[in-house]
């Protein structure tokens, strides 16, 4: 917490207004009845009172539900392909929760790996992620079981912590530190402020009671992979909707479609879900026609395949999939029920 700063709550709107000069500022809003990141309206900071997390994860700002990759038009010589107009505006997202901030690190690796994805990476480069430490986690949160926690700073440029009348402000990344250092609205935080933040964070961490042992989940999943009866049982109540994947901060599957009329239009990509029976139907049939295989894939991708490739669990413990699932399918219960390695048949 060295060099931490603070801002009085009544001055937060002023600070965001200042930032609005250089950045398009986004902040939590429930203007249409659903908590989401939206263009900040220039005054409302009431989210400090009601906001726990958004329904749509922060990934939707970088990998939007649907986007145009290029447009296709016709001229005398044939077809013309044009990239979307270049956007150079910086974007500052205020209030990102630690789980969602961590999801960006997990996604960055994917979109930089085999090839560089210009769409995603360009938005990432232009963005400042301002985190907001969790003080009131939900009963479905289990971030502390996956290398994170209500005060984790991974993936953030700056982190804010609500300490009562003030917000404690800490620069995390180089970009974030610069932004904080040169700001006149921010005052130096006292040792009392820092101690208060420490207490609040400890209390938040204690509130997280949903805990699972993820130490050997990769090995246990590997061992149970072929056990159809286990997966049949685990998947029985799932209805194969897209809720737990489309709204998961770390799921990144997309589909590509042409939206054309009369030979003109655009090529778009949109989020897809491995839970759908129609997944990958475009190039071929779905290799996972059975529901149990799809449920297995969702879990194994996060806790087995991704960890094998990138040495990190691709789940942030945000709990959205538990809260929003129509049938209350609970990933933590399923992970808990994985047989220990030696019990498995293989």
């Amino acid at each position, binding site marked *: 917490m060295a060099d931490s700063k603070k801002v009085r709550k009544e001055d937060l709107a002023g600070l965001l207004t200042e930032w609005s000069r250089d950045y398009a500022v986004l902040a939590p809003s429930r203007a249409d009845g659903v908590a989401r990141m939206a263009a900040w309206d220039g005054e409302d900071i009431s989210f400090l009172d009601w906001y726990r997390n958004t329904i749509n994860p922060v990934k939707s700002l970088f990998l939007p539900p649907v986007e145009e990759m290029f447009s296709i038009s016709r001229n005398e010589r044939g077809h013309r392909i044009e990239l979307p107009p270049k956007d150079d505006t910086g974007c500052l997202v205020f209030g990102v929760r630690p789980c969602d901030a961590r999801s960006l690190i997990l996604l960055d690796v994917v979109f930089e790996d085999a090839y560089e994805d210009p769409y995603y990476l360009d938005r990432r480069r232009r963005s400042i992620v301002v985190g907001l430490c969790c003080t009131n986690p939900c009963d479905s949160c289990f971030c502390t079981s996956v290398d994170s926690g209500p005060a984790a700073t991974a993936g953030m440029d700056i982190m804010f912590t609500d300490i009562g009348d003030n917000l404690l402000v800490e620069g995390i990344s180089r970009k974030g530190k610069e932004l904080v250092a040169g700001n006149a609205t921010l005052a130096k935080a006292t040792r009392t402020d820092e101690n208060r933040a420490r207490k609040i964070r400890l209390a938040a961490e204690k509130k997280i009671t949903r805990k699972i042992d993820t130490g050997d989940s990769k090995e246990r999943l590997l061992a149970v992979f072929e056990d159809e009866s286990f997966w049949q049982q685990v998947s029985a*109540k799932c*209805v194969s*909707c*897209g809720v737990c994947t*489309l*709204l998961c901060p770390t799921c990144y599957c997309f589909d590509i479609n042409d939206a054309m009329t009369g030979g003109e239009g655009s090529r778009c990509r*949109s989020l897809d*879900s491995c839970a759908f029976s129609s997944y990958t139907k475009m190039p071929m049939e779905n290799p996972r026609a059975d529901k149990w295989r799809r449920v297995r894939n969702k879990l194994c991708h996060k806790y087995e395949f991704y960890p094998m490739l990138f040495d990190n669990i691709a789940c942030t413990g945000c709990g959205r999939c538990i809260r929003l699932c*129509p*049938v209350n399918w609970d990933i933590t219960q399923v992970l808990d029920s994985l047989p220990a390695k030696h019990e498995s048949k293989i």
Partner: protein
Amino acid sequence: MSYSAAKNSQMQKKLRQEAKALLEQGKVDCIIGYEPGSLKHATTPLITKDKAATERLVINPFIVNNLSNFLPYTKGRIGIVAKGCDSRSIVSLIQDNKVKREDLFILGVPCSGLIDVSKVEALVGKYRDEIDDISRQGDIITVKVGAAKKEFSLSQVMFDNCLACELPTPAEYDVLLGEPTSPIGAAAESAGKLDELKAMTAAQRWAFWQNEFRRCTRCYACRNVCPACYCKRCFVDETEPQWLAPMPQEPDNLMFQIIRNLHVSGRCTDCGECERTCPVNIPLRALTRDMYDIVDELFEFKSGMDTKTQPLLTAYEVDEAEDLVK
């Protein structure tokens, strides 16, 4: 019969006994019911062949899922727990040849209505997990948050479709787990979205829906929880020809829902599942209930009320709805 926790637990006891006996005697291959969920004030479907698991079965004011949705995908003989609305969906599925009556053992729950936790959240200004207790005695719902205690009426906290429910006690069942209940009949007392929309001009309504569907994620939870949506190949998944863009965008999102609503007309039982499960709170019931009322008005038909009435789309009388096409 007025609701009491004691009567409810009697029903639950009876359910556990019946379900266990059904499995033990080999009368069914599996049981579909509810067990406590992993979130507060929630339940989750229990689909099991294990007779010991029947001890986990519950009946309470939070048994929201319409379990008939699982029937077309479940093999063998099934013992299924059904509230009034669920039983109507079951009847509709039987009539559509999606499941055979003789393969079912219906454990009927005389329903007193379900509590819409999101309404409670709004009333007390707290989230689901911050609310310590929600209980019902008679027609009073008591909500406890810490030391504070508040009381609400049924019309304030029950699901809109429960307030409008016409058949709380299943008409089709093999065993009825308690004494028949009567409809709450308080639809008029709750400020439902439908009334609000009916007061608008057509242009305002159109603008309203366009705005609502802008946030649709195309997760298809509305379709996948709907017992009437059982098509193996849904029109929206067709690629040759492609009826709608498979991307979450307008106007395709709204078109998807309008077509879905037309497809389930005459089979929708107003169970409310589509609206409840929509992760972005689109008030879908304002569409489905309106269609339900239109079907009733034009054809005097309500789906799944009994096994004898022919399903709407298979029956035709020469003089019916003459003014339908103008």
